[in-house]
């Protein structure tokens, strides 16, 4: 059976909570392994076939420091055969110019080194100005806005996880 990991910062609050909700949504039949993104190594990263990456947007459209520090390592990897889905938290009211940018930055990075990206979502229902996560009218991952649309997160997670169940090889 393929190995599936969900990567996020164990020191985070909202991203960690979203990761737990995602894991729950898969249900007990799916073994999703939590991995602390703050303690990543190349070997650990490559030991999974399906990877769910929790990448919140920091500041005015940046990766969090723990992901940013992993980028030089990531750029040296070959992710052929890996299937990756990305989720991230953003705030479309306070930061409309870079809503969910980090999801887009990470998506571009992993695709450049061979990963298959899955888990695209509809951009409808959000109001923002610009997002690096928007490609061909779709988000390249799941963007959760716990600040201004917290009540929609449950359904968004459920829909996304259902899609991932069919996209990942198990």
């Amino acid at each position: 059976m393929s190995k599936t990991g969900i990567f996020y910062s164990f020191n985070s609050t909202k991203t960690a909570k979203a990761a737990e909700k995602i894991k729950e949504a898969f249900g007990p039949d799916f073994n999703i392994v939590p991995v602390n993104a703050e303690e990543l190594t190349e070997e650990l990263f490559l030991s999974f076939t399906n990877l769910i990456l929790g990448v919140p947007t920091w500041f005015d459209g940046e990766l969090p420091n723990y992901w940013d520090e992993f980028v030089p390592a990531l750029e040296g990897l070959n992710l052929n055969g890996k299937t990756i889905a990305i989720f991230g938290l953003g705030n479309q009211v306070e930061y409309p110019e870079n809503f969910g940018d980090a999801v887009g930055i990470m998506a571009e990075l992993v695709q450049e080194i061979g990963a298959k990206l899955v888990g695209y979502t509809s951009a409808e229902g959000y109001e923002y100005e610009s997002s690096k996560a928007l490609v061909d009218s779709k988000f390249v991952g799941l963007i959760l806005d716990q600040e201004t649309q917290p009540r929609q997160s449950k359904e968004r997670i459920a829909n996304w996880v259902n899609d991932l169940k069919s996209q990942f090889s198990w």
Partner: protein
Amino acid sequence: MTTVPKVFSVKTTPKEILEKWYRLMTLGRAIDEKAPNYLKQAIGWSYHAPYAGHDGIQLAIGQTFEKEIDHIFLYYRDMLTALSCGMTAEEIILNGISKATDPTSGGRHMSNHFAKPDWHIHNVSSLTGNHTLHAVGVARAIKYYDEKAVAFSVQGESSLSEGYVYEAINGASKEKLPVIFCIQDNGYGISVPKKDQTANRKVANNFTGFKNLKIIHCNGKDVFDSMNAMYEAKRHALETGMPVMVQANCIRIHSHSNSDRHELYRSEAERNYVLDYDPLFKYKRMLIRYERFTVEELEKIENETKIQLKEAHKLALKAPDPDPNTYLDFVLPEPYQPQKYIDGTHQETGEKKKLITGLNETLKAEFRNNPDTFMWGQDMANKDKGGIFNVSKGLQQEFGPQRVFNAPIAEDFIVGTANGMSRYDEKIRIVIEGAEFADYFWPAMEQYVDSSHDYWRSNGQFTPNVTIRLASGGYIGGGLYHSQNIEGSLASIPGVRIVYPSFADDAAGLLRTAIRSRGMTMFMEPKALYNDPKAATVIPDDFEVPFGKARIRREGEDLVMITYGNTTHMCLEAAERLSKEGASVEVIDLRSLIPLDKETILNSVKRIGKVMVVHEDKVHSGFGAEITSMIMEEAFEYLDGPVKRIGSTFTPVGFHRSFERMILPNTEKIYNAAKDVLAY
């Protein structure tokens, strides 16, 4: 979006470079953290704006700067930038604790303002973004003299709210100048969040519509992203000669300064959030993670840095304090001293020339005399039009559009870029029309006041060699915006000479002296006299008038009128009329207000005893108030009556001629007042 090549990365950058950066960052942070202790111990550094959180971009800006070739203008948070430019820890502390050997200013300027003018690290104002115009001005010189160099204007994102920063960026875009605007965005202007400054969080994007301007965004907290951004910015500016704006996202880990408490307006969560992204710790983690350094190696560097700082601290403490008795030094540099016309008079005979001709011919002569003379202003150089009054007629045709050109309708830009351009080389002399009329000069006051500080603030290391010409005064039916006098308001600002001729020869001679002098001179032109035959005189070709030397235009024994500008002629007319009634009236044409010829004034006052001070500007707080007070203080016992002041009323100058007659002084008003004074 601009793609920046990845020239620097943690994996590929040579180890010695990584080490140099780590040493600079560690040293900078150590000083940044130590600075508040100097204040606690009452040693100094009473103003400290910590830079922690800006580490990546400040390191990168300094590493990109080439001393003595490029020009850089730092702001008050740029401690690491200064170190990265090459300044030493000792020099930083000397500034912090205001020692006589502080390379910025010898203790005259605030702490945390780091400069080293010899290296082209310029001494700047505390006024946020004020130096943006200077960077554009010096870049104009870089381009004119075809130097392979750039000008860096380094500032916080809130400075982009200032109108003059817009003027500067517009100018660099229009003139295609190699300026790198380095915007360090930490999200706050003191306690004011970015959302209260502008609608656009990515503030640099407010400038996307500017032609010729490349905009680069980078992570100012990350060394490699910042280095790549600055490397690309400099490459682009050098190769294309075009401006670049780099917006670096930073964090402010501490309060704005030691007089601010950020816990009053930032939540604990936010303060912790920025701490998580401490750029120094991130750089250190990466050096270890990617096995470029061991923990032990980095600890060794940290320990060596501590010793380095300790040594710098000791040396700085031993340095001498400034001598307060030098406070009068460097207000104004010594002016050009006329060689032939020592007292600014002549006996030449021949054809009389109008005042405007005197100005025009003197400008041309000085432009021929010094190839490093430049002139710009509003509406002054377009084909056959040489200014609204034709003072600059023919100059652009003769000297070309690189030396004589129109500026945008932006008075602060006109003055600020003159200051900046004159920083390039001592030999440069700049003449500007500060505004189309003196009344429109007020937007330039920001640069005027700041430029007036430069010589003093830099401890004599820099003075803007600029002559500001302004068509001034009324009697043309011009109303509120074409008829005012502003010299009374300007005269309380030290650091600028103010001259105001009344006759063509003095206008020519003072202009020549102003252009040849170091320092700033405000050259007021009585526009009502430009073409008036009564101001026409014979003008020797090489006439010069020294500053601070009045001219007695008519000698007398019963009353002395001290005057300048338009009212000189009115006083002469009134004196002539009074002479027919048996009164002998002396008329002193001051010519210079700053410096003031007190000797000539007091000699006449003591000899005559009855005094009038006459000028066109308002009596209320006009320059006459200063002259009158000086006479009271220094020659009271010689007075036969009160000093009478005549000038305009404490109102604006109205447009209708009847208002002008009511408001402005004239021969009749002077005559009547003289009768009163003579009666004592």
